[in-house]
């Protein structure tokens, strides 16, 4: 019985996909015991042949026009409200009260954004830095305006006021700027700098320095700096708005970012091998974020409070 059902199933799928002519299909139906069952399905299928989609507002051509408008606007650099210094100063003060741990050791000031939080901070020279989760910067507060030097662990977006040379040191290399905005990512085995406005020099010991102009980024690949376009200011703003995008990224790194942003513990029962993920998650909803990453990867999981168990 089972085999004839499988065979019927197979013939049905062929007919559905247009691989079987109507005549062949009728012949087959006449010979099989599943005829009634198949004809029920056929009725549904045939009835739907005359169905059409509801009419959308825009044709494809019109939609293309709308898209071009949208892309054009973003490219002309409209500045969102949160970047205005007044707003940022207030936000920074509040966040400082809630999330900042400040240490005084050897005259160094340390600003830390813990797992699960983002933090905006104004440096003594009025430059602004936004720290991503689990990131820290340290600098000498005294004499900062003359000697603008910051150490970074993790990821931060900088907007530097014009002035003396501004240097950001991280594990892999040094970024040097003169009035600009850029994003630096320096964690474990990944180092990436994206220049949003102005110009940035990236220096790695033992290599020629790389100059990035607005819209360019560099990534450390096999110990070499590789330059690629980084289009649109939105790239660096995304993580600040809570969106985290990945293209061809190892799943383990994506899970690390999930842990950082949502303050979770993630446990995997079986190894993830070299699973690669392309997509994004938004940090504002834990369940949606996990679904956005794990579902396309075909992984089953359970959530218990702050712990996620992946099968």
């Amino acid at each position, binding site marked *: 019985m089972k085999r004839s059902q499988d065979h019927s*199933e197979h013939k049905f*799928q062929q007919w*559905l*996909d*247009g691989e079987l002519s109507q005549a062949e299909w009728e012949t087959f139906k006449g010979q099989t015991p599943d005829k009634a069952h198949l004809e*029920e*399905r056929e009725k*549904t*299928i045939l*009835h*739907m042949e*005359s*169905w*059409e*989609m*509801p*009419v*959308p*507002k*825009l044709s*494809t051509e019109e*939609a*293309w026009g*709308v*898209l071009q408008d*949208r*892309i054009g606007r*973003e490219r002309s650099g409209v500045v969102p409200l949160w970047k205005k210094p007044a707003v940022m100063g207030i936000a920074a003060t509040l966040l400082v009260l809630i999330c900042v741990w400040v240490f005084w050791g050897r005259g160094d000031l340390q600003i830390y954004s813990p797992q699960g939080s983002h933090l905006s901070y104004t440096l003594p020279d009025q430059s602004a830095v936004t720290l991503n989760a689990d990131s820290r910067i340290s600098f000498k507060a005294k004499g900062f305006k003359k000697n603008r030097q910051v150490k970074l662990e993790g990821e931060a977006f900088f907007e530097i006021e014009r002035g003396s040379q501004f240097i950001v040191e991280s594990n892999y290399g040094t970024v040097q700027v003169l009035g600009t905005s850029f994003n630096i990512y320096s964690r474990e085995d990944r180092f990436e700098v994206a220049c949003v406005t102005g110009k940035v020099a990236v220096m790695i010991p033992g290599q020629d320095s790389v100059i990035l102009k607005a819209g360019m980024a560099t990534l450390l690949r096999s110990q070499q700096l590789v330059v*690629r*376009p*980084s*289009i*649109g200011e*939105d*790239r660096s703003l995304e993580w600040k708005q809570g969106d985290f*995008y990945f*293209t*061809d990224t190892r799943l383990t790194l994506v899970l690390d970012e999930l842990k950082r942003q949502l303050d979770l513990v993630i446990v995997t029962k079986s190894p993830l091998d070299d699973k690669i993920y*392309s*997509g*994004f*998650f*938004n940090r504002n*909803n834990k369940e*949606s974020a996990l*679904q*956005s990453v794990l579902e*396309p990867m075909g992984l089953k999981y359970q959530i218990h409070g702050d712990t996620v168990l992946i099968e």
Partner: protein
Amino acid sequence: MSNFLNQADFKDTFEAYYSSIRNFIYYKCGDMDLAEDLTQETFVKLWERRGEVRPDTIKSYLYTIANNLALNHFKHQKVVLKFQNQALSQSPATSSSPHYQLELKEFDQRLQQAINDLPEKLRVAFLMNRVDKMKHQQIADALQLSVKGVQKRIRKALDLINEKIKYRL
């Protein structure tokens, strides 16, 4: 920079996938306005990342983005899809009885309802096949499933539909 999607390629990509992505989102949420908005979002995201996405994974990338955008915007509310049935809106042939026309209309309503009640994954694959006329392989590529996986979803959808329609008889 050879796998960099340029302006011309981007337009081709848009024209190739715009309506399928829009319909995909519609099948998930039943709101055509929302589907159009989120499809715009999807292509904006592709535009922003056109320097990184590999040409051979653009299709599945678009569907993943669209899927996740829908996830964030539409929280598992009841879905009401409305398809136009051409066979009903045409003036009935003089040879078919009013009774037959009524039966057809009732069947149509029951079928639309049964489809609305389907679990999302089954409904989407089924409609991509039956309304968009996408082949199993095309659906498999878009949703990153195997062909067998797609066939399984379509089969389950049909089984569930027929259960519902039979029950009401």
